[in-house]
Protein backbone atom coordinates (compact mmCIF):
# COMPACT_ATOMS: atom_id res chain seq x y z
CA UNK A 1 0.00 0.00 0.00
CA UNK A 2 1.14 3.53 -0.77
CA UNK A 3 -0.05 6.77 0.81
CA UNK A 4 0.69 10.11 -0.80
CA UNK A 5 0.26 13.41 1.03
CA UNK A 6 -0.43 16.19 -1.46
CA UNK A 7 0.52 19.70 -0.45
CA UNK A 8 3.15 22.33 -0.89
CA UNK A 9 4.61 22.43 2.59
CA UNK A 10 1.86 24.24 4.48
CA UNK A 11 1.35 23.62 8.21
CA UNK A 12 -1.73 21.48 7.58
CA UNK A 13 0.19 19.47 4.97
CA UNK A 14 2.84 18.64 7.55
CA UNK A 15 0.17 17.83 10.13
CA UNK A 16 -1.52 15.43 7.71
CA UNK A 17 1.82 13.78 6.94
CA UNK A 18 2.47 13.27 10.66
CA UNK A 19 -1.06 11.90 11.17
CA UNK A 20 -0.55 9.47 8.30
CA UNK A 21 2.75 8.25 9.75
CA UNK A 22 1.09 7.77 13.14
CA UNK A 23 -1.82 5.88 11.59
CA UNK A 24 0.54 3.57 9.73
CA UNK A 25 2.49 2.91 12.91
CA UNK A 26 -0.69 2.07 14.85
CA UNK A 27 -1.98 -0.19 12.07
CA UNK A 28 1.20 -2.26 12.09
CA UNK A 29 0.97 -2.58 8.31
CA UNK A 30 3.68 -2.03 5.80
CA UNK A 31 2.73 1.20 4.09
CA UNK A 32 4.87 3.63 2.16
CA UNK A 33 4.09 7.27 3.00
CA UNK A 34 5.42 10.00 0.72
CA UNK A 35 4.97 13.73 0.34
CA UNK A 36 4.01 15.10 -3.06
CA UNK A 37 4.84 18.78 -3.41
CA UNK A 38 4.91 19.11 -7.19
CA UNK A 39 1.92 21.21 -8.25
CA UNK A 40 1.56 19.39 -11.58
CA UNK A 41 1.36 16.03 -9.82
CA UNK A 42 -1.11 17.43 -7.31
CA UNK A 43 -3.29 18.84 -10.10
CA UNK A 44 -3.17 15.51 -11.92
CA UNK A 45 -5.32 14.07 -9.14
CA UNK A 46 -7.93 16.79 -9.71
CA UNK A 47 -7.27 18.11 -6.23
CA UNK A 48 -8.05 21.82 -5.91
CA UNK A 49 -7.73 22.12 -2.13
CA UNK A 50 -4.74 20.92 -0.14
CA UNK A 51 -3.69 19.10 1.87
CA UNK A 52 -4.98 15.88 0.39
CA UNK A 53 -4.41 12.23 1.11
CA UNK A 54 -4.25 9.59 -1.60
CA UNK A 55 -4.19 5.85 -1.00
CA UNK A 56 -3.06 3.68 -3.90
CA UNK A 57 -4.03 6.38 -6.36
CA UNK A 58 -7.47 7.12 -4.87
CA UNK A 59 -8.10 10.53 -3.30
CA UNK A 60 -9.60 9.89 0.14
CA UNK A 61 -9.76 13.46 1.42
CA UNK A 62 -8.84 16.98 0.27
CA UNK A 63 -8.82 20.37 1.91
CA UNK A 64 -8.79 19.12 5.48
CA UNK A 65 -6.75 17.13 7.97
CA UNK A 66 -8.40 13.87 9.00
CA UNK A 67 -7.66 12.42 12.42
CA UNK A 68 -5.24 9.54 12.93
CA UNK A 69 -8.09 7.10 13.65
CA UNK A 70 -9.85 7.99 10.41
CA UNK A 71 -6.69 7.40 8.37
CA UNK A 72 -6.09 4.14 10.23
CA UNK A 73 -9.59 3.05 9.21
CA UNK A 74 -8.74 3.63 5.54
CA UNK A 75 -5.54 1.64 5.88
CA UNK A 76 -7.32 -1.31 7.46
Amino acid at each position, binding site marked *: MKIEILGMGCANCNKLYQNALEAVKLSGKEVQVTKVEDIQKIMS*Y*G*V*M*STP*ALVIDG*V*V*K*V*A*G*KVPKVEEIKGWIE
Partner: protein
Amino acid sequence: MEEKCLCEPTEILIFPCSGGSNVGQIANGAGVKLTQSRMGKFFCLAGIGGHIPGMIESTKAGKMLIAIDGCPVACAKKTLDHAGFNIDEYVQVTDLGIEKNSNLDPNPSDVVKVADHLASLISRRRGI
Protein backbone atom coordinates in the same frame (compact mmCIF):
# COMPACT_ATOMS: atom_id res chain seq x y z
CA MET B 1 -33.01 32.58 8.98
CA GLU B 2 -30.11 32.52 6.57
CA GLU B 3 -26.97 30.98 8.00
CA LYS B 4 -23.90 33.22 8.05
CA CYS B 5 -20.68 31.78 6.72
CA LEU B 6 -17.43 32.49 8.55
CA CYS B 7 -15.42 31.55 5.53
CA GLU B 8 -12.40 32.71 3.61
CA PRO B 9 -12.65 33.38 -0.15
CA THR B 10 -10.70 30.18 -0.83
CA GLU B 11 -13.47 28.25 0.92
CA ILE B 12 -16.17 29.80 -1.26
CA LEU B 13 -16.44 27.57 -4.31
CA ILE B 14 -17.96 28.90 -7.52
CA PHE B 15 -19.42 26.55 -10.11
CA PRO B 16 -20.50 28.23 -13.36
CA CYS B 17 -22.31 26.12 -15.94
CA SER B 18 -19.99 27.55 -18.65
CA GLY B 19 -22.55 26.42 -21.23
CA GLY B 20 -22.66 26.89 -24.99
CA SER B 21 -24.61 30.14 -25.18
CA ASN B 22 -24.15 33.78 -24.28
CA VAL B 23 -25.63 33.22 -20.81
CA GLY B 24 -23.43 30.14 -20.23
CA GLN B 25 -20.37 32.20 -21.08
CA ILE B 26 -21.62 35.09 -18.96
CA ALA B 27 -21.87 32.63 -16.07
CA ASN B 28 -18.31 31.54 -16.79
CA GLY B 29 -17.11 35.15 -17.00
CA ALA B 30 -18.81 36.01 -13.72
CA GLY B 31 -17.05 33.07 -12.05
CA VAL B 32 -13.70 34.28 -13.38
CA LYS B 33 -14.39 37.85 -12.28
CA LEU B 34 -15.42 36.82 -8.76
CA THR B 35 -12.27 34.72 -8.47
CA GLN B 36 -10.03 37.53 -9.73
CA SER B 37 -11.61 39.93 -7.26
CA ARG B 38 -11.00 37.38 -4.47
CA MET B 39 -14.67 36.88 -3.66
CA GLY B 40 -14.36 33.14 -4.10
CA LYS B 41 -12.64 30.39 -6.01
CA PHE B 42 -13.59 29.12 -9.45
CA PHE B 43 -14.21 25.39 -9.33
CA CYS B 44 -14.61 22.78 -12.01
CA LEU B 45 -18.20 21.71 -12.59
CA ALA B 46 -17.12 19.17 -15.22
CA GLY B 47 -14.99 17.49 -12.55
CA ILE B 48 -18.09 17.02 -10.42
CA GLY B 49 -20.03 15.64 -13.38
CA GLY B 50 -17.12 13.32 -14.12
CA HIS B 51 -17.01 12.09 -10.50
CA ILE B 52 -13.29 12.94 -10.27
CA PRO B 53 -12.44 11.95 -6.67
CA GLY B 54 -10.02 14.85 -6.15
CA MET B 55 -12.66 17.35 -7.24
CA ILE B 56 -15.39 15.72 -5.15
CA GLU B 57 -13.22 15.66 -2.04
CA SER B 58 -12.04 19.24 -2.62
CA THR B 59 -15.67 20.34 -2.92
CA LYS B 60 -16.56 18.61 0.36
CA ALA B 61 -14.02 20.89 2.03
CA GLY B 62 -15.79 24.03 0.78
CA LYS B 63 -17.80 26.10 3.23
CA MET B 64 -19.99 27.97 0.74
CA LEU B 65 -21.03 26.57 -2.62
CA ILE B 66 -22.24 28.91 -5.35
CA ALA B 67 -23.80 27.74 -8.60
CA ILE B 68 -24.20 30.02 -11.61
CA ASP B 69 -26.49 28.76 -14.34
CA GLY B 70 -27.03 30.57 -17.60
CA CYS B 71 -30.60 29.46 -18.12
CA PRO B 72 -33.46 27.44 -16.60
CA VAL B 73 -32.00 24.16 -17.87
CA ALA B 74 -29.98 24.53 -14.64
CA CYS B 75 -27.10 22.19 -15.49
CA ALA B 76 -24.82 23.48 -12.71
CA LYS B 77 -27.51 23.13 -10.07
CA LYS B 78 -28.52 19.65 -11.25
CA THR B 79 -24.90 18.46 -11.46
CA LEU B 80 -24.18 19.56 -7.88
CA ASP B 81 -27.53 18.18 -6.66
CA HIS B 82 -26.81 14.87 -8.33
CA ALA B 83 -23.44 14.65 -6.56
CA GLY B 84 -25.14 15.30 -3.22
CA PHE B 85 -23.93 18.84 -2.60
CA ASN B 86 -26.04 21.60 -1.07
CA ILE B 87 -25.89 24.92 -2.90
CA ASP B 88 -25.73 27.97 -0.65
CA GLU B 89 -26.20 30.69 -3.26
CA TYR B 90 -27.65 30.34 -6.72
CA VAL B 91 -28.43 32.48 -9.71
CA GLN B 92 -29.71 31.99 -13.23
CA VAL B 93 -28.38 34.61 -15.62
CA THR B 94 -31.70 34.82 -17.48
CA ASP B 95 -33.40 35.76 -14.18
CA LEU B 96 -31.37 38.97 -14.25
CA GLY B 97 -33.07 40.09 -17.46
CA ILE B 98 -30.44 38.82 -19.88
CA GLU B 99 -31.87 36.98 -22.86
CA LYS B 100 -30.32 33.72 -24.04
CA ASN B 101 -28.82 33.51 -27.53
CA SER B 102 -26.08 31.58 -29.33
CA ASN B 103 -23.40 34.29 -29.19
CA LEU B 104 -20.37 32.96 -27.33
CA ASP B 105 -18.77 36.38 -26.86
CA PRO B 106 -20.52 37.67 -23.76
CA ASN B 107 -21.25 41.34 -23.29
CA PRO B 108 -18.78 42.53 -20.60
CA SER B 109 -21.45 44.63 -18.90
CA ASP B 110 -23.63 41.51 -18.51
CA VAL B 111 -20.69 39.68 -16.86
CA VAL B 112 -20.27 42.57 -14.44
CA LYS B 113 -24.00 42.58 -13.70
CA VAL B 114 -24.00 38.89 -12.72
CA ALA B 115 -20.73 39.13 -10.79
CA ASP B 116 -21.97 42.16 -8.84
CA HIS B 117 -25.24 40.41 -8.02
CA LEU B 118 -23.38 37.40 -6.63
CA ALA B 119 -20.80 39.54 -4.84
CA SER B 120 -23.60 41.17 -2.86
CA LEU B 121 -25.10 37.76 -2.00
CA ILE B 122 -21.69 36.49 -0.85
CA SER B 123 -21.00 39.59 1.23
CA ARG B 124 -24.42 39.38 2.88
CA ARG B 125 -23.88 35.75 3.79
CA ARG B 126 -20.42 36.50 5.14
CA GLY B 127 -21.88 39.37 7.17
CA ILE B 128 -19.57 41.98 5.63
